[in-house]
């Protein structure tokens, strides 16, 4: 089974976000970067599928700056076989530009039985590259998969929708984006970390197409108005209810 996993390097979720001097991007001084949490599920699922098949290859693909190599090594330490970094100055703000570059690379390196993505990156919250790549490669795609069963060439996937779970079916080859719940990602063991250093990692400089999304500025969210402590214990409940009714007007 030949499987591609597309991953992204993102700031840790505990990051305190500060805008850089350009007024448009993250000031990454002192920021810890991690493998996007939703992509960990993608890597894990790819490894499990390969293990189940008994043979195959898991190739990890990332787009971005040189530091992306470090993130790819994390996935290699989990057990992926080799990595490809599509090296650019930065990740473009237009997901379709990223999708075009990834689709071109996948097309050149394919065919694939499965292509995994995380359902979204926790930095830009787009969740767009996976389904866009599927459209560009003309492959069926299921997004935000929280449970996956593959029998023969038939994929049955659960995806959470508002107040329900949708059970979706399609055939392989397919693009799947993973949600929390699909598996428990393994931690890279020391042996895996050592082995990862020797695994092939191909760095390819790519020129990106022009996009249609231009960042004008990045600002902190408006500060919330200073709140108040209404009181202590259950005796303060009537006052809380009064404030919610009369001041906040939400009851």
């Amino acid at each position, binding site marked *: 089974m030949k499987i591609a996993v597309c991953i992204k390097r993102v700031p840790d*979720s*505990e*990051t*305190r*976000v500060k805008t850089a001097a350009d007024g448009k991007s*993250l000031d990454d001084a002192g920021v810890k970067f991690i493998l996007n949490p*939703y992509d960990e599920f993608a890597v894990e699922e790819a490894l499990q599928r390969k293990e189940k098949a008994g043979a195959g290859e898991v190739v990890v693909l990332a787009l971005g700056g040189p530091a992306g190599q470090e993130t790819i090594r994390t996935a290699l330490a989990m057990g992926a076989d080799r990595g490809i970094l599509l090296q650019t100055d930065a990740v473009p703000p*237009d*997901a*379709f530009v990223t999708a075009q570059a990834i689709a071109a690379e996948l097309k050149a390196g394919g065919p694939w039985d499965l292509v995994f993505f995380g359902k*979204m990156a*926790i*930095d*830009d*919250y787009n969740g*767009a590259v996976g*389904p*866009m790549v*599927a*459209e560009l490669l003309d492959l*069926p*795609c299921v997004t935000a998969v*929280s449970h996956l069963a593959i029998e023969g060439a038939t994929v049955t996937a659960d995806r*959470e*929708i*508002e*107040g*329900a*779970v949708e*059970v*979706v*079916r*399609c055939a392989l080859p397919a693009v799947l984006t993973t949600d929390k*719940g699909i598996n428990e990602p393994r931690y890279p063991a020391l042996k895996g970390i050592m082995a990862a250093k020797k695994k092939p990692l191909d760095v390819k400089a790519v020129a990106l197409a022009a*996009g249609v*999304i*231009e*960042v*004008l*500025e*990045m*600002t*902190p*969210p408006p500060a*919330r108005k200073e*709140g*108040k*402590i*209404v*009181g202590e*214990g*259950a005796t*303060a*409940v009537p006052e*809380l*209810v009064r*404030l*919610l*009714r009369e001041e*906040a007007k939400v009851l």
Partner: protein
Amino acid sequence: MTTILAVCEQRDGVLRKVSSEVVTGARRIADALGAEVEALVLGSAPASGSDLLGSFGADRVVTLTADGFGAYAPEGYAKAVAERAKGAAVVVCAATAQGKDLAPRIAARLGTGLAADVTEVTAEGGALVAVRPVYAGKALLRVKLTGQPAVLSLRPNVFTPVQRPKAGAAQTVAVPLSAGRVTVKEIKAAEAGALDVAEAPIVISGGRGLKEPANFKILEDLAHAFGGRAAVGASRAVVDAGWRPHADQVGQTGKTVSPTLYVAVGISGAIQHLAGMRTSKVIVAINKDKDAPIFKVADYGLVGDLFEIVPALTAAVKSLA
């Protein structure tokens, strides 16, 4: 005249509430650009409730029908909307489970980009400018969309539906398409009437302070007291501990919510949780630790034992009904 497409949603033949938000957002863009709004509904027949879209500003309501369009059909819907969008200036979707899946497909089919999960949209000098939270709301990105058409998805619960009566003339168009290769086999509904945290006007969330999973019952009781308008959410800690399903998780690796009222119970307020709920209109925090970070974002804080406060609040809310 320039057209703004508002891609609406139906489930089981009934229009979903978020559709009126999409039409409201589309109307706002149309007024700024001097355009008209076409509300698009995809289904096996006109959805019940689609006749009301005119009152939110749709100049016309078009239902695109095909065999296999009754349930969400990712590929068929994307093809149908992309076909209809040729010549349109803007395509507006909702950033719901369906819209998050559909909008990128539409954009890719049109060969253009996407601004997802938008919370504000304006036109500046004829160009569309959108604001979207990034880093789970720790920052706002203002972006200019120059795509033809521009594709965006709106965060639910942000674009409050506004009555802007327009003709809303209804039209049904059968399109020669199939569902495509990806099909919905079944929808396993949650318990009757259960609201999703991302859509509920009131969210009551619990954290480690609840001490054990069974104690979420007191939050469910409070949610019930709001008469079907409230959903129960959870912090990452309790989801990771297996107390609550991931679907209920609020925060950077869960859902971002913007309800009218958010009640955080026994949640200390880790930065990744705050990111997911800070755009709530009113925040109430109940916590025994008066120094908990949650009180920094809460409009109203109650310090003390949640096992005394929550039942008292439930009783008080019940007495209002």
